[in-house]
């Protein structure tokens, strides 16, 4: 892969080039001080050295609440997809990996139309990152699943195009790349203790941590809401006063009692059951994705948990106890 | 032979009330006004709560007046604790109050009073007989609601106005949107007066003693209540001038101000010479003779003028806030000492007084709320009697309709009225 050098001073001009490919969105902060991906109107809004946003980029592909269908006179119709082309700039490798996982889920068999339409209009530009205490991803420099990637180096960035769209960006920004000697990447200090897929039997370990977590978890749902690879959803239908109505899809959460409930029974009646379910989904995977961990090590769930639950603590403790 | 005519429940007003007319033959002996709302006991509930909780709790006295209750409570607590707020905060509160006035007057005039003028039972028939007016009323009310929603964070029981400042600064985009909506609604607002300029043709009523806050250009700074040219008192001394008594047939206490049954509200405010916005002032001047020196029947017209005034003021305030631009806002102020604080505001239906004592630990030890409807209760009862006497011999249905209509002139808010301070 060819790499070109972009001097830090050229960043603003580079952003202008990116706008050619869609509305520019990137890491910034809200008035209240929350890190978020949002439209970048002026380069000063960009926080390129951000740690992690509260809500991962999944919101661009799977909005918290979206209209799935509308109906009138008993006939259902799909809404027109209205999201404009967007360039999502400065995604960390963990978030890119998160999108890659969602792609596996939503672009496979029975492709999800809304997801697919939005995904097709998204240009992803990744950037290398500096991990903090919460991070534990394993493939920090992986530039997979993006159109282009920037690797931070002294006084600038190394640009590499990954897809044809990335090449097009390279072409558009060609005159910004410096021809001087390319500095070597600064090696990022990654803990590199990514989460490997776990043994599904671990979830029935009787390690006391399970019960402790189940007792202290407040079921606020923050961990799933903020996880780049949590995608469970609920579907509800609302009639309107004029006789029509809408069917919506909304992020659901395996921590809620209703998640496994059917008429006359609940297959995950206790919070402990639901915690085990989360473990299974995150670290062991379901059906076609069995054996693949969906945790990309972004550290959000721990950062947002009001009681500081960290399931990894549990693996290390339980694994020790389970090995003979 | 004695008989009793009862209007129960009173309709098209907020809260639970009824009226009994005691007749001896055709002669009206007496009239009882029952404000029978369940006791709400807020003054007692507030005791033992922290100063910071007081405004959040007390606004639940009444939904129609929640904004003004909240602002008054904030001012009173801030007065007690010596907390100062920024200009932006003050302006924002004022904007909220004007929005509330637009919303509340529109609701009252279009949906509660208008049916009387058109001879229908209420909002449902109104939609059938005068859909255009309904639409107009809703459009006007909506701007008021939009202000509450955008600025207050919620239409009823607003959250974004709080001790010492604001939760969130209103963005330029939101302010611009408000400005545009207000501009769009202004013509309709100026139109309201036309609908309510014909006073209803019942016998003349006693001349009211009007009580209102002394008008100032910064209304939230007003600290004096005026009863007449030469009779006024400082808000902080209200206890010396307002006396309350409990009536056997009412859960609201009757208040007398400086010994008289005062009348508060829109008409009272106009009598004390406020500085109205340009457009509203023009209309006021044109209708002056129908209002000044007249009885309570002019109150609905006065409300219509105020509605326009509030909309114009809201627009000015939005423009001023846009000029000020966004800036850092103080969070919740922390109480450093206790004290007693009192504040009064003009609610859509008249003067509202809150007073609190906070101890050094920040706990509320005493709470008083004097509401406009409690203040108006005496005058209302007096006018009801006068009207009933003036209509002696009339058909019962005509009389009860007139009595109900008279009550709607006062725009009472009964939920509010059942809060009063310890006797």
């Amino acid at each position, binding site marked *: 892969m060819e790499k070109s050098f972009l001097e830090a001073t050229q960043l603003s001009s580079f952003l202008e080039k990116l706008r050619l490919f869609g509305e520019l969105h990137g890491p910034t902060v809200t008035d209240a001080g929350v890190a978020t991906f949002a439209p970048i109107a002026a380069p000063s809004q960009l926080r390129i050295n951000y740690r992690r946003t509260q809500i991962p980029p999944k919101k661009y592909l799977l909005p918290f609440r979206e209209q799935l269908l509308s109906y009138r006179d008993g006939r259902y119709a799909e809404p027109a997809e209205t999201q404009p082309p967007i360039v999502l700039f400065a995604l960390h490798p963990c978030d890119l990996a998160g999108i890659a996982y969602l792609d596996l889920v939503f672009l496979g068999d029975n492709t999800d139309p809304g997801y697919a339409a939005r995904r097709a209009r998204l240009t992803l530009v990744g950037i290398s990152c500096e991990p903090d205490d919460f991070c534990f991803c394993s493939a920090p420099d992986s530039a997979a699943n993006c159109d282009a990637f920037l690797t931070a180096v002294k006084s600038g960035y190394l640009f590499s195009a990954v897809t044809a769209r990335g090449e097009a960006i390279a072409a558009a920004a060609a005159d910004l790349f410096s021809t001087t000697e390319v500095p070597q990447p600064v090696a990022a200090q990654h803990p590199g203790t990514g989460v490997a897929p776990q043994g599904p039997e671990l979830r029935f370990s009787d390690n006391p941590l399970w019960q402790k977590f189940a007792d202290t978890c407040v079921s606020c749902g923050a961990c799933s*809401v903020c996880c780049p690879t949590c995608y469970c959803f609920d579907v509800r239908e609302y009639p309107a*006063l004029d006789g029509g109505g809408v069917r919506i899809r909304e992020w659901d959460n395996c921590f*809620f009692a209703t998640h496994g409930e059917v008429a006359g029974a609940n297959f995950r009646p206790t*919070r402990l059951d639901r915690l085990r379910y989360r473990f299974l989904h995150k670290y062991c995977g379901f059906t076609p994705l069995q054996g693949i961990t969906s945790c990309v090590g972004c550290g959000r769930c721990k950062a947002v948990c009001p009681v500081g639950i960290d399931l990894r603590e549990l693996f290390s403790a339980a694994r020790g106890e389970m090995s003979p | 032979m004695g008989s009793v005519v009862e209007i129960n429940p009173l309709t098209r007003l*907020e809260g639970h009330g009824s009226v009994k007319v005691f007749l001896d033959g055709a002669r009206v002996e007496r009239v009882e006004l029952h404000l029978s709302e*369940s*006791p709400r006991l807020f003054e007692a509930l507030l005791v033992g709560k922290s100063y910071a909780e007081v405004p959040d709790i007390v606004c639940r006295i009444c939904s129609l007046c929640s904004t003004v209750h909240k602002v008054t409570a904030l001012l009173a607590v801030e007065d007690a604790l010596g907390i100062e707020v920024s200009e932006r905060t003050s302006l924002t509160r004022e904007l909220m109050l004007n929005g509330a006035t637009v919303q509340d007057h529109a609701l009252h005039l279009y949906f509660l009073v208008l049916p009387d003028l058109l001879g229908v039972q209420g*909002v449902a028939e109104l939609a059938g007989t005068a859909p255009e007016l309904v639409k107009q009323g809703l459009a006007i009310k909506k701007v008021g609601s939009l202000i509450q929603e955008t600025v207050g964070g919620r239409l009823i029981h607003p959250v974004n106005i*709080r001790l010492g400042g604001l939760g*969130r600064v209103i963005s330029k985009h939101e302010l611009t949107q408000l400005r545009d909506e207000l501009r769009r609604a202004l013509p309709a607002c100026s139109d309201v007066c036309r609908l309510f300029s014909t006073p209803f043709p019942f016998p003349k009523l006693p001349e009211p003693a009007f009580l209102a806050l002394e008008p100032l250009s910064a209304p939230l700074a007003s600290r004096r209540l005026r009863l007449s040219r030469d009779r006024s008192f400082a808000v902080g001394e209200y206890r010396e001038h307002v006396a309350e008594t409990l009536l056997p047939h009412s859960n609201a206490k009757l208040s007398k101000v400086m010994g008289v049954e005062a009348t508060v509200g829109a008409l009272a405010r106009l009598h004390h010479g406020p500085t109205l916005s340009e457009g509203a002032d023009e209309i006021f001047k044109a209708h002056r003779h129908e209002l000044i020196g007249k009885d309570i029947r002019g109150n609905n017209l006065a409300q219509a003028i105020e509605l326009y005034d509030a909309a114009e003021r809201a627009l000015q305030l939005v423009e001023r806030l846009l000029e000020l631009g966004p800036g850092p806002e103080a969070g919740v102020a922390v109480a450093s000492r206790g004290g007693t604080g009192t504040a009064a505001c003009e609610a859509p239906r008249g003067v509202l007084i809150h007073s609190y004592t906070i101890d050094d630990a920040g706990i509320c030890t005493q709470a008083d709320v004097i509401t406009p409807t409690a203040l108006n209760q005496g005058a209302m009862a007096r006018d009801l009697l006068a009207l009933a006497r003036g209509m002696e011999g009339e058909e019962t249905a005509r009389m009860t309709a007139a009595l109900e209509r008279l009550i709607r002139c006062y725009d009472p808010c009964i939920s509010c009225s059942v809060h009063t301070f310890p006797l």
Partner: protein
Amino acid sequence: MKLVRLAIAGLTACSGCQLTLLNCEAELPDVLQRFELVYFPMAQSGGRREGPFDAALVEGAVSTPADLDMLFSLRNASRLLVAYGTCAAFGGVAAMNNGQSQRQELLQTVYGSQPSLPESFAPAPFGNFVSVDWTIRGCPPEKEEVVELLAALLAGTLPPVRSYPVCTECRSRENLCLLMEKGELCLGPVIQGGCNARCPATGIVCEGCRGPVREANVAQELELLLERGFGREEIERRMNRFKPGWDYGQRR
């Protein structure tokens, strides 16, 4: 078209729930066209509370014999009884001191110790007296939920239920977590969502106006707040603001 027959009334309350309906400016014309407001004293004269109604939306706590009388009469006259708002569902602000101070004392504080105090007992939710078919939470309720209910009634059903806490919507809106980042007394984790985290979105803690979420881990919320330095008394006071009688040991 047969109109759906409604009763809308209030017991001990601020009228905010009823007003919320009148505040649906955009939807009101449609509502007036499709519903018959048989009994709605706040906006209609000449109504009859005898019904029959398809649904009665009743706000307020039950705190006087008159309240109880009205509640029974509307329950009997209506196919569906809707506890309209937090007071009706949990007691609301009127009930905040239940189990803490005697009603009589409170009455005396306000009305003085005279022989004929107004008749009043500790404010209670509808569920203590009658069966309730649907509950709209909130003080005041969200317009959307009111419209949702009305539209569902037209469709012959009730709205689908949501059951997530305020935090879920709060996080999804990318608000700053006031509990974690500012150490404020936010009740979001144990309160039923559906308000789109209205208060935290303006930088103000959730005061719990929508009542408990289905699986509130009350014991943990309490612990969490104690750890953050709030006194037990203050926490209880805040939690009781809209619903008295929490089970502080509940972890379910």
